[in-house]
Every structure is written in structure tokens, then in C-alpha cells.
């Protein structure tokens, strides 16, 4: 009963913010995207569900959290957006010219926008310049655009950032869940992952299935009034329904994996995590994805992000990831750890 109540509140919050964001987001300048979204009509599958099929990817420059530089400002000025767009073009050109390190703007390990090192930078390249938007953060609630971490979670986030790529790596439990080829968590699957993250959506009667290329995370979401199962899982237990042309998915029953290392503390899963997602196509090639994340073990309050996600051309494929099968890095990390321990 209580859960039902919270769910309704989550939806209402989401609706309010979608309305606000559609009107102010700068539509990405892709040739196939119409400037007038009103003219576009949501297509439906042969059995009548709104059609979301295709491969989707996040290609925007909007950071998850608002930087201190933009404190107090939800939106950039047109001049600032132009400057970001120009910088993106330059980075992309540098990439294409082979200046890998320069392209990601790496100065020192700590300053790098990509945590880690130059090796990791290719994971983040989109193959073209990312789209600049006016939003200063994906997070729209709380209004300061910041993750509402609990004190403990903030400490965990600092610890995670400090030990990333440094260790110690004394056993297979020390690398993060991604390095172990388990998952990076469901929270960011729609907008994170190699090269912006690729998600193929396939629909069949009663189901929307999302296959996330990285770790082959797979969510088979019943949309025909199914119920939650109550069995804890890494990816939780998703149940969806349609509200007009919007897909609303509630996910609960996550395993408690708080005791594992996570690359991003805000994506870690616990038995109190609950997600409410809203998928709404606002044009032929753009979706507005809204997620509300609620977990009292990590956050002091629920937070909501609104993410523009692009639909890639019809011939786009996602490929086999087979992370665990080729995880030579894990044994190498452990043998390096042994070597360091032997030297000390």
C-alpha cells in the first residue's frame, strides 16, 4: 500500500518536470530531427503499443551533476551552449586526427574528465561531436542538480574515486562490479556505457525488452499488467505500463550488493533501491528519458534526471560484449597486486 502511494507521487513529479524540460531543451542539430516536434506522430506497433524499437544512445554533453561553476543556474546561455558545441567539435577533430589524450582534455589524472587514463578514453568517444544542450545537469531534482548522497554514500564515493585504478587489488572482490564484468547497475544503463551506451529496444506483444550492449545487461519488461516477483536480482524486477504514449517502468527487488565496489556509488544496488522510469519519444529520433532514483541507503531523498537519448540509424547493430570471457585484465590486476605486495 505504501509502495503504491510512493509510486504515484513519483509519476506526478516526473510529469511536472517533463513538461518543463521539453520546452527549454535545445533540440540537437541532427538533420533528421524536425525542429517542430508537434508535427511528428508517435508510431505504434502492429499490436497497438507505442513503438520505441531501435538502437538508442546518449550523445549529449550534459553532466549528471551540475558543476560548481554553474551553481544556481539550471540552464546555460546561448553563448555558453555555442562555446560547448565549438569545444566538442574541436575535441572530435582532435580525436579524428589521432590526438587521443588531447581529445579528452586530459591534463593530469585527477583533472581528467575521464576518470582513469588515456587508455580508457576510447570507450567514451561517440564517433562524432556530442550535442550541446542548455541543461547544466541531467539531474533536475533536487533543484541544485546534485546527487543527494547520505554522508556514508558520499564517503563511499570519495573512497571509490580515490582508489580507482590505484587499488589496492588484493582479491577479485577489489575491482569494481564493472571490472568484474558483472554490471554497472541499471540506474544509468540508458545513458552510460562505452561510446555513450547502446541500448537496443525490441518489442513483442506484452513486452518491451532492452538489451544494453555493455555487460549484455538485459531487461525483459512486461507491459501487460504483470506483477513484481519479489525475487532479488542484480537488475531488479521491472514492471511497466503505458500512460498514453509514455512507457512507465517501476523496478524494485534489487539484490543487496552494497558491500561490493562500484565505479559510481550512485549506480550501486541495494534491497531498498527503487527506480521509476519514463520513456517518452518526442521526435522520430529523440526520446526524453526520465528516471527517479529512490534508495534511502544511498540518498537522503529521491532524485530525478531527465536525459535526451538519440535513436541511431536503422542499420545500427549492437554486438556481443563477452566481457567475462575475455577478462584478462582481472588476472593481470591481481598478479600486479601480488607483485606490489611482494615488493613492500
Amino acid at each position, binding site marked *: 500500500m505504501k509502495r503504491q502511494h510512493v509510486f504515484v507521487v513519483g509519476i506526478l513529479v516526473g510529469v511536472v518536470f517533463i513538461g518543463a524540460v521539453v520546452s527549454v531543451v535545445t533540440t540537437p542539430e541532427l538533420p533528421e530531427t524536425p525542429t517542430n516536434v508537434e508535427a511528428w506522430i508517435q508510431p505504434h506497433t502492429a*499490436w497497438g503499443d507505442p513503438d520505441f524499437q531501435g538502437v538508442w544512445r546518449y550523445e549529449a554533453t550534459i553532466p549528471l551533476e551540475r558543476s560548481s561553476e554553474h551553481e544556481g543556474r539550471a540552464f546555460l546561455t546561448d553563448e555558453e551552449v555555442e562555446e560547448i558545441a565549438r569545444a566538442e567539435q574541436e575535441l572530435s577533430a582532435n580525436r579524428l586526427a589521432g590526438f587521443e589524450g588531447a581529445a579528452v582534455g586530459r591534463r593530469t589524472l585527477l583533472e581528467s574528465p575521464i576518470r582513469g587514463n588515456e587508455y580508457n578514453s576510447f570507450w567514451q568517444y561517440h564517433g562524432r561531436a556530442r550535442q550541446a544542450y542548455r541543461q547544466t545537469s541531467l539531474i533536475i531534482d533536487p533543484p541544485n542538480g546534485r546527487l543527494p548522497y547520505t554522508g556514508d554514500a558520499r564517503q563511499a564515493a570519495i573512497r571509490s574515486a580515490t582508489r580507482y585504478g590505484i587499488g589496492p587489488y588484493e582479491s*577479485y572482490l577489489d575491482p569494481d562490479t564493472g571490472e568484474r564484468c558483472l554490471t554497472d547497475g541499471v540506474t544509468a544503463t540508458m545513458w552510460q556505457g562505452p561510446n555513450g551506451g547502446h541500448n537496443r529496444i525490441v518489442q513483442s506483444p506484452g513486452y518491451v*525488452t532492452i538489451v544494453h550492449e555493455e555487460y549484455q545487461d538485459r531487461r525483459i519488461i512486461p507491459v501487460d499488467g504483470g506483477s513484481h516477483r519479489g525475487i532479488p536480482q542484480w537488475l531488479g524486477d521491472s514492471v511497466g505500463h503505458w500512460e498514453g504514449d509514455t512507457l512507465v517502468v517501476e523496478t524494485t527487488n534489487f539484490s543487496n550488493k552494497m558491500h561490493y565496489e562500484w565505479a559510481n556509488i550512485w549506480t550501486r544496488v541495494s534491497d531498498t533501491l527503487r527506480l521509476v522510469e519514463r520513456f517518452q519519444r518526442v521526435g522520430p529520433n529523440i526520446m526524453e528519458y526520465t528516471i527517479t532514483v529512490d534508495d534511502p541507503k544511498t540518498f537522503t531523498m529521491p532524485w530525478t534526471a531527465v536525459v535526451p537519448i538519440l535513436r541511431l540509424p536503422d542499420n545500427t547493430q549492437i554486438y556481443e560484449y563477452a566481457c567475462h570471457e575475455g577478462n584478462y585484465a582481472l588476472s593481470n590486476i591481481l598478479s600486479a597486486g601480488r607483485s606490489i605486495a611482494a615488493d613492500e
Partner: protein
Amino acid sequence: MQQGLQRSNVTVVAAVVAVLAIYGPQLWGQAADYVAPRTAAGWPDLNGVWQALNTANYDIQAHPARPALALVPAPPSTTTVPLGTDWATPGELPAPPVRALGAVGGVPAGEGVVVGNEIPYQPWAVLIKQENAENWLERDPEIKCYLPGVPRATYMPYPFQILQGVDQILIAYEFAGATRTIHMNDVGNSPGPTWMGWSRGRWEGETLVVDVSGFNGQAWFDRAGNFHSDALHVTERYTPISSNHLIYEATIEDPNVFTEPWTIKMPLYRRLETDKRLLEYECVEFVEQLMYGELGVFDPAGGQRGE
């Protein structure tokens, strides 16, 4: 006593052969005129959660029951026996790593799924298969939670779900969360070698035919060590024979390993539980201690870290 044991073994083999002889046309004959319900797009509707019910994952060929997948010879009796006979010995025992499993670790007998039961290995490959079987614990990719490949994913003891989209049909397997995309539109050739292969589908009447190539050659057919190379080419046929049954046939071609194509065939059963769903079997986590435990400064299986 020993005579009796031998005779019972002969009986088991004879029974298996007899079952094989009658296994065949009768089982499949009823399928011929069944017409499946149609999807909204007009294709036969294969949507649902399915599962094989056989022992093919143990061994795709006919096999008697045995005490374990990994066996070791029993040590010979070292004492002299009175009256000129031998002490009874068990012959083979479960290998030490699996001994504690008892009856849970046993291998159920099976009639096999290979049409004609023979796998036409090239002579060198027969030896590799035997070697694989003898080193099953070290070599079977299933033990390491590696992607199961095709056709093995079909008859592992886990359900799988067919999700029939328009240009893509997904087959979502419970084991290791493996997902295959069957492309129903033209996507060209495989872009590179993979565990699960590159699947291109088409309809032939009631049958979904899937051409699978682009394998990396590292998957196996079963726990008995049956294997293939990266030249594997599988042609799968999924044919509905009732609302709750499919016939699955897969023709196996691999000129690097076999002398000619061969076929496996089995029924698949719809999981009839109300609103049946796939659950997670994220086995990577289950095998980390096995694969990496001894590589670290400390092994979590050995207790707490130092200091």
C-alpha cells in the same frame, strides 16, 4: 557378483539401443499439418518461454547413467584375495572435486539428440573429444560461466524466451543472461567471431529457419566434450507442432572438424506456469573464486584478509 554386474551393464546398453531404435518418426509425425497462430504481422507466433527436457547438455549422444561427470579409476586392490577371486571394486569413482555431491553429481542416462547418434568426427578430432571429456573440469566453458554458444544454449537446463519483434527476434536465455538477436532483415555477414554467433532468420512456412555463423570456436556442444571450430555453421529450424511444443532441429556443419554435416533434433516445451518469466542466472559471480581466488594476495575463500 562381477558376472552379474557385467550382465546388467549389457542390459543397460541393450535397452538404450532398443530405445534409440524406436525413437524417431512416431514422435514427430503429428507435426505435419499444424498451423501456428499468427502474430499481428502475420508470422507464426513463437513468443513464449520455452525449455528443452532432455539430457543433451550432459551428452548429445546416447549415454548410460554414471556416477559423475568427472570420474577417476578406483585404486586397485592391494591385498591378496582367498579362493582365487578378486575383491569387488567399483571400477570408476567420482573425481575428488565432485565426490561430495553424491547423487546430485550423477549423470542421468539419455537417449541422445543426434539423429542416427553418430557424430562424424574426423579421426584427429575424436581424440580431442576424448581428451576434452577426460579434462572436463578444466575445459568445459559452462563451468566458467562462459556464453554457451549455439546450439548448446537451447538445451541447457534453463528456460529461454523468444521475443518476436519485427526486424529482430530476440532469444533471451536464462543461463549467463545470454541474448541472441536473430536478424530478420538484411544485415550482411558476421562482423567478427563471437560465442553466440551471428544469426540471420527467415520463415519457411511454419518454420523459423536461422542461419548462424561467425563463431569463435570456443564453445562446446555438451559436458561430454563434443566440440567444433570457428568454421561452425549451424542451421536451426524452429517448427511449432502444437500451441505448446516446438520441434528444434539444428544441422551442424564444420569442415574443420567433421567429415559431413549432421543434425540434432528435439522437442521444446512451453513453460506453462502463469505469467512465466525468465529470472537472472548471473553466474559470473559464482565462478570468480574458482577462476581468480588463488591469483590474489589473499583468497576470499580462505577467510579474512591479513592485518
